């Protein structure tokens, strides 16, 4: 249990910004849809303050953009710069995963 808590806190894929970009990679979503999607694919419960803090930063950096409001719900979509940023993060996580897996194989002999 303790290990789960520790690893969850430093896993790079748990960064709210990465989670939001990953969620928006398959199409625009509003706040609540983002929370539900992130819960489903990452098993992470983002708080509402954390979600909107990350949305505001991503918007400032031009990685996502707001669309027209629908019934007081404002959807966001990923910008081309956001796609590039997410691709960069994913490829760096893949490199890390490959190195980690290879070294674990050497260490454990499996």
């Amino acid at each position, binding site marked *: 249990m303790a290990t789960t808590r520790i690893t969850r806190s430093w896993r790079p894929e748990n960064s709210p910004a990465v989670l939001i970009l990953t969620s928006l990679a398959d199409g625009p979503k*509003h*706040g*609540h849809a983002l*929370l539900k999607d992130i819960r489903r694919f990452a098993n992470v419960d983002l*708080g*509402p*303050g*954390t*979600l*909107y*803090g990350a*949305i*505001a*930063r991503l918007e*400032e950096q031009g990685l996502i953009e707001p669309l027209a*409001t629908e*019934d*007081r*719900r*404002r959807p966001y979509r990923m910008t081309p710069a956001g796609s590039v940023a997410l691709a960069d993060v994913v490829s760096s996580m893949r490199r890390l995963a490959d190195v980690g897996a290879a070294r674990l194989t050497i260490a454990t002999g499996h």
Partner: protein
Amino acid sequence: MRRDIERLIRWYPAAWRARYGDEFSTMLDDELSGGRLTWHIYRDVARAALGERLRHGGLAGDSAQTEVALRSGALTVLYSWAFLLIGTAGFTKLAEHFATTISPHARAVPTIAYRIAEIAVASATVLVFLGAVLVTTSVSRFLHRGGWSVIRRSVWRTALAGGLSSVGLLVLARWAHHLTPAARNGTNALYGATFLTWAAVTAVTVLLTVDTVRRTIDATELSPRLLTIEVRLAVAVATCASVAVAAIITWIGSVAIGDPALLNTHASTEAALTSMPVVATTSVAILAIVLTTLGEGRIVRTTLRARHSRA
């Protein structure tokens, strides 16, 4: 429920609420679907709202405009000066008559530290007043353009606290005239309690005054040249405040080691360092140094960032 959500959103700064408030409350409505706000949500929103307030005030993050960040750094230094004044008042009471009562063998370091603290606090105060004089024209322009309505409540609140403090001072002065030195310094409990209440009101007045200045300067247009001068003055005030706090702490430490009887009746270093007046003075001085570091750090980071982006 809606009212709870609206109250929660008020924790965020006005500009943030104007941009995200509606969609944020709808998202919370959807998320709770009729349920109650949980402790987890309160904690998460409190942390996020504090972050946004610091960001909007230019105290955190790199997104704030250079001008906003420099201004907020300088105003944070102004708050540190207010705490320095309050700490110095406590220190002055603590060090009252020390020059004539301290043992000769323990006199040298405290005497030098006291003199340095005096000079540093006086220099910081002169610099703050110089900064105030320099913005007078800009502030009067702001007031002529209807700025009074922005700061009116704050000014009245400060004036009320200032009035209370002045009346309290007159009452205490008349009362003290009829008391012996021993009664003034602790044996008369009612006088002691009244003095502490007056000290608290005066400290609040100092903080309200600085807060009114902050609100005024926040809303006043400053030319780039004037802002640069004000920021330089703030760095100088921060340096004086750091020197003053170091001198006050040196004074307390050297007296607690050399002649602890001056700070408490038990005459031990431990008792001297943990006595209420020493702890209170040190705490306020530390708060001043924390604010100084925050404000100066903000100025330095912003200046370096601006230079880097120009290069």
